[in-house]
């Protein structure tokens, strides 16, 4: 499995869980479905970007930092749109990015990129 696919799948799975945990916040429970879809899309997009970064930059530290940054940034946009729950949205979002950043640096095959270049 290449790094981009790995990032996409892991980002998507964590995104689903990230959305589902909003159930524990009673105030937003009615919008649960929209939140799950939004956070899944956010996870998929972040996963792809982090996977592309991992394919180009082989550094676990930079990968984790990039993942954290992308996760925080995407979560910030969502929190900004809601104008509320900045910490509750950004901390888990950053955590998702950090985990995907670490995983795509450690695992996933980057040979697909070199094969397609030849």
């Amino acid at each position, binding site marked *: 499995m290449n790094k981009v696919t790995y990032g996409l*799948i*892991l980002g998507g*799975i*964590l995104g689903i*869980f*990230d959305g589902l*945990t909003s159930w*524990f*916040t009673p105030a937003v429970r009615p919008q649960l479905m929209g939140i799950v879809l939004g956070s899944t899309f956010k996870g998929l997009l972040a996963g792809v970007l982090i996977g592309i970064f991992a394919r180009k930059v082989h550094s676990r530290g930079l990968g984790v930092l990039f993942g954290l940054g992308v996760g925080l940034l995407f979560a910030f946009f969502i929190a900004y749109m809601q104008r509320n729950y900045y*910490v*509750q949205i950004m*901390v*888990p979002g950053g*955590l*998702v990015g950090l*985990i995907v950043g*670490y*995983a795509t640096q*450690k*695992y996933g095959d980057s040979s697909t990129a070199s094969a397609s270049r030849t």
Partner: protein
Amino acid sequence: MNWLSDKAIARLRSASAEPDFAGTRYRLIERIASGGMGSVYLAEDATLGRSVAIKILDVPDSSGELAARLQREAHILASLEHPGIVPVHDAGTLADGRVFYAMKFVEGERLDRFSERESTLPGRLRIFQRICDTVAFAHTRGVLHRDLKPENIMTGPFGEVLVMDWGIAKILRANRIATPAEMPREQPRDDSGTLAAVLSLAPLETAHGAVLGTPGYMAPEQARGDVERLDERADIYSLGAILQFLIAARAHGTQTTPRVLTAIARKAMDADPAGRYASASELGQDIARYVDGLPVLAYPENVLQKVGRWGARYRLAIVLVLTYLVLRALLIFWFRR
């Protein structure tokens, strides 16, 4: 009168047995191996200034069966151009009638010795896959090795894996290898011991009932001397025995042998050729599937084993998702406090 010492006699005997390369481009350096058919010497190619390995008969036998076998081996090697098969540079006959051929000098060690050092299973399986690739290539060219064993595999310092000693190889489909009649007309054909002259011999057939091979690595049908019914699956049996050797050598340590690998070796070594892998590629692919954590042909799994393999394959992803969930639960608890 002074009697010669035993040492001196042994030295004289050894010197007289050494081949005389006078009149050729080779300068003998030392004997590096010897077998039933002949010996292999390290020599220097004076023309090109490089080291070569020369396989030569121990006794002059330019018209006998041994000479024919050596010439045939050179012919087969020259026909099989593959990174896993040692290339032949030259062949000829010495003044004393001994037939020889020169090949690339491979610096490395035999698989049986290499396996004493290489303790990791993935490292051994990588080597095994390369052997399967080489044997599969030879099979596509219609050649059976018939003597595959760890002693006939060389591993080089840069990851090379070479299948050696094609002395008793069998040509299954002669049309796949250029016979002397098919050789291009511009090839030199003379009687002075050049490659073309040496190779211009009809392929040698092994008589039905003759047993050639190594016990323990020989397929049952090969051990019975059932030469006419031998096919690629005889080599697959030997590959299974090599795999068993590699995993058993590893098991001498503290680690246990994975059941899946044992099942793969068993399938390759099935007493019935029909029960074995259909090709060396198929065997190599099953090993690749095992390495990648995928199901293999030789080992039908139950549901629990499937789940276990899936868990082992995606262990990191599972650990990361669980880590996330634990941290997320802690965050929820902390925000609700």
